[in-house]
């Protein structure tokens, strides 16, 4: 996978959107299992975003460049959906559970959440990607119109653990323990104990964690 990463990273550094997209699409076309997609997400796309550097010459346009690169990855993720659906249908692993993937109020880093939403799909869930910075009232109201088994909160900025706690408290007041609250994201790197202190039920780090959760819920069905 390193050789693919190097190629993609070079294209991304040049901000060559057309070739970035077509290169990753060619990898998706050759994917035959959930792990093939997951590897592209984690070992190429996420890695490229996490390792984005900013040279001294570009120091005044670092945010500009970061946003362009994020935008290219976002386009790739939008175009990945048909491949996600195809692989999920091929392995016929739907478990009948619905997950809503959401960033709490104030959290605008959504690429991780979008990737996680696809991981849930690949693991057999009906996955609904809701979006960035979702007010807590919307979570509660959603419970009135849609049966949701899991709320998955993606939190990047550690400060948003505060709003995540408010959101989780509100969900639990409305739904009790009938909804599982899963959390993940970089905010937990330095705050592992925040999983319990904000009231979440489970921390999900990897696709394997989500896959295992899917299996557990399938057994409980």
């Amino acid at each position, binding site marked *: 996978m390193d050789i693919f990463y190097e190629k993609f990273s070079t294209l991304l550094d040049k901000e060559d959107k057309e070739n970035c997209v077509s290169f990753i699409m060619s990898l998706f076309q050759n994917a035959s299992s959930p792990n093939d997609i997951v590897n592209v997400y984690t070992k190429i796309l996420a890695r490229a975003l996490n390792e984005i550097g900013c040279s001294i010459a570009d120091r005044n346009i670092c945010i500009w460049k970061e946003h362009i690169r994020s935008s290219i990855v976002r386009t790739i993720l939008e175009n990945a959906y048909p491949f996600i659906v195809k692989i999920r249908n091929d392995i016929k692993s739907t478990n009948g559970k619905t997950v809503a993937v959401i960033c709490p109020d104030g959290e605008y880093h959504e690429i991780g959440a979008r990737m996680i939403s696809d991981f849930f799909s690949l693991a057999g869930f009906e996955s609904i990607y809701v979006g960035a910075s979702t007010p807590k009232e919307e979570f509660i109201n959603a419970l009135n119109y849609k049966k949701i088994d899991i709320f998955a909160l993606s939190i990047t900025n550690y400060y948003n*653990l505060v709003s995540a*706690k408010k959101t989780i408290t509100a969900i639990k007041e409305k739904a009790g323990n009938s909804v599982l609250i899963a959390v993940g994201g970089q*905010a937990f790197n*330095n705050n592992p104990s925040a999983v319990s202190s904000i009231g979440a039920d489970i921390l999900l780090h990897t696709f394997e964690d989500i896959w295992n959760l899917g299996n557990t819920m399938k057994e409980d069905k």
Partner: protein
Amino acid sequence: MDNILELKNINKIYGNGEFKTQVLYDVNLNIEKGSFNSIIGESGSGKSTLLNIIGTLDKPTSGEVHINNIRTDSMKRAELADLRNQTLGFIFQFHYLLPEFTAFENILIPYLMKNSKPSKEIVERANELIELVGLTKVKNNLATKMSGGQQQRTAIARALINNPAIILADEPTGNLDSDTTEKIYTLLRKVNESFGTTFIIITHDRRIAEKADRNIEIKDGRINIDILR
């Protein structure tokens, strides 16, 4: 890292008899030397009371406050005044500059409270601080002849004149626009990194709080969440 501040089982009750109001409940908190901390919470949550207790401006009803391993909650008034003057710097939402004095003179006031005449060294330090906070051009302006941002930067330099180990700030950017808020934050960080000064900042401003090393949310008089960047 060593703790510069330790709070042990802090309770604060105002009033007595049937009019008692408890505003802090069993607060335990350690703050590391040289760290940059933010205290957040809704109005009335108890965060200003907590900051006043840390700053020895108020005493807990029960519990212990240790600053630099010295217990302060049982100190006498004169001892506390000395401790505050030497160890703690305060920045408030309103600058409380003395209008009859220039920016430079205002910065020297904490020193002049203990000394009759400024030494050569302290004048040098005041000038260094003036430069640090970017007020060289207006240092001889009266406090009333400066912008809000300049007044707040003067207040920051004043808080630093005695080289305090801890700066306590209560909504330091509460009266400022977003650009000036960013400049003040950058300045506070520069002080933190240059002098190793510990910062404890109460703020409602997300732009300040999310950049702190640690956020402590106070809710209903208790620590609701305590998280690291």
